[in-house]
């Protein structure tokens, strides 16, 4: 094992997959010499050359479209959007092309591509550079959506995503990039659509993904002395969901809090809540809570920016309130 950052973990996953399979290529804005907007692809152009690490013009739509066509032809393109907010410019190619071509060709054609999206707020970048839009993608059959919560997860999940034969949206939280964690020396992957119980517990189930997992873990640790024993599930893959792990945990604890940074209304938490309300209803001891982003654009002002997404204190309070019921 070694300690590396989330950013490095992603960089390593890319490098190792590119070494393993010459069909893996990278495309995106400033991913070459510049190293990527968040320095995730640093030095890869030196290792693999500019025919495998390709700077694109500011043309998100065709970058996505080109990835679709290359993937249909047998390559395994991994593309980067500079901010997940610009997925708005790629939607047609993702939703109407990438997600549907396997189906429309009755299984003949695969579209093995990965779109890497830096997600989330906390950097003061304002309303157009801070959104968490992953819920849209989870509403699109044919797409897979992955969101790792730490370096180990990031590396293993990205490798699995690259090897997957479907279009995968790979979300990365910007605030996680500099955070470090242990990662094995040897090659490993983490299967998609398999959630992870990061902390066992009996009092209530917290379901989260990405950066929120870290916050839930801290909250859980801080609540332990108070006799609240929280089970924390890291979803890892948001679509298609690992229903079994979720439902089993809920059946055990009977209490659920779902946590994410994305806007509450219509977020991934809604789907998870609905899933539970349909399939584990009789096990529930309390209302299902969602602690999620406020229904507002992300404000620039720092205090407001922090206030509009769940912080550890919000999560703790919600858990305590729920246990008091």
């Amino acid at each position, binding site marked *: 094992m070694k300690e590396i950052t989330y950013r490095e973990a992603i960089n390593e996953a890319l490098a190792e997959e590119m070494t393993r399979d010459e069909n893996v*290529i990278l495309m995106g804005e400033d991913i070459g010499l510049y190293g990527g907007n968040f320095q995730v692809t640093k030095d890869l152009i030196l290792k693999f050359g500019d*025919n495998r690490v*390709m700077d*694109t*013009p500011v*043309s998100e*739509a*065709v*970058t*996505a*479209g*080109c*990835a*679709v*066509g*290359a*993937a*249909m*032809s*047998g*390559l395994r*393109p991994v593309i980067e959007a500079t901010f997940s907010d610009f997925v708005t410019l790629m939607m*047609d*190619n993702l939703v*109407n*092309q990438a997600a549907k*071509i*396997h*189906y*429309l*060709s*009755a*299984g*003949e*054609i*695969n*579209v*093995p591509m990965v779109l890497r999206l830096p997600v989330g707020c906390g950097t003061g970048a304002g309303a157009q550079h801070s959104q968490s839009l992953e819920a849209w993608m989870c509403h699109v*059959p*044919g797409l*897979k959506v992955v969101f790792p919560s730490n370096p180990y997860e990031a590396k293993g999940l990205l490798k699995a995503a690259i090897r997957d*034969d*479907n279009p995968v949206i790979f979300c990365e939280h910007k605030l996680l990039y500099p955070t470090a964690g242990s990662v094995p020396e040897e090659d490993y992957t983490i299967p998609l659509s398999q959630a992870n119980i990061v902390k066992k517990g009996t009092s209530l189930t917290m379901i989260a993904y990405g950066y929120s997992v870290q916050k839930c873990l801290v909250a859980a640790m801080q609540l332990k002395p108070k006799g609240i024993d929280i089970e924390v599930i890291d979803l890892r893959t948001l679509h*298609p969901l690992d229903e079994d792990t979720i439902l089993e945990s809920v059946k055990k604890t009977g209490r659920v809090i779902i946590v994410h940074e994305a806007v509450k209304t219509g977020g991934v938490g809604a789907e998870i809540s609905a899933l539970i309300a349909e399939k584990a209803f009789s096990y529930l001891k309390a209302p299902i809570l969602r602690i999620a982003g406020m229904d507002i654009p992300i404000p620039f002002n720092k205090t407001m920016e922090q206030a509009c997404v769940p912080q550890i204190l919000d999560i703790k309070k919600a858990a305590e309130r729920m246990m008091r019921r």
Partner: protein
Amino acid sequence: MSLTNEKIIKMYTRMVTARLLEEMLNEMFNEGMLHGTTHLGIGQEASGVAPCMTLMEGDKITLTHRNHVGCVGIGMDVKKILAEMFGKETGVCGGYGGSMHMVDYEKGNMFASGVVGGGLGIAVGAALKMKYKGEANIVICFIGDGATNEGMFHEALNLASIWKLPIVFFVENNGYAVSMPTYRSMNLQNIEKRAESYGMRSIIVDGNNAIDIYNMTFSAVQSVREGFGPMFIESKTYRICGHSRSDTEQLYRNQKEMDYYLAKCPIKRLEEYMLKNNIAKSEMLKEINTQVMDELKQAVLYAQNSLEPSLENIGKYVYAK
């Protein structure tokens, strides 16, 4: 690969196949035999077929909502095309796709996208793979005049140009995007002009003259194949039929205009050329028409007799395993 008589006859046969197929589809729609909608390419047979005749093994095309002519042009099986129109399991998309999404990867048709401009990125990506792998293949990306007003057009041509990809953008300018005449949708005499924005070479062809299209596309394809970067071809043609099944009134154009283009029918013109140059006698042309008609009737029977896809498989192809 010059234009041998044999090839001309093959091209003619495919153009006739496309025409008769589409006339048949039109009737079947009118009789309520078919579900959904369709966009016919009647009048555009030279534009749709001739470029395909310049291709070799491993080359690819991408098509649009108006794709039947191109499907026939690239040599797809009319039985499977018709079966798809009927939504049958034996269709090219197993019944999942329908008129707008005909696909046959092996034959060279990567995908037909019903989103205007939806094929542009795909075509560029396919060309990227060919260049990356050092293959001698090329892509022809078919689009309409209307599609050249989409943002994707701009991005795709620019990317293809700066990356020097082996791709030909073949614009079938049929005068309209639904009801919008080309001259109203852009402030330009020739769409070809747009290639200059990307430093891309371009030509204009008479889209109703199969021989010319073949020859000019052939040399364009050759130069693209040799690595000189992408090319742009504007094929000036005309849509004889309505835009789609629902376009009945056609208030946006007049009979005079239609008559003018009816007289320029690409099939008639190719027949005249073939007769004049002794490539075929009129009996042979008749024979071809008869044979094609027989084949199509067989194909309809095949389609009708094919099975519906099993409902059990409705979710089978959402994800690759």
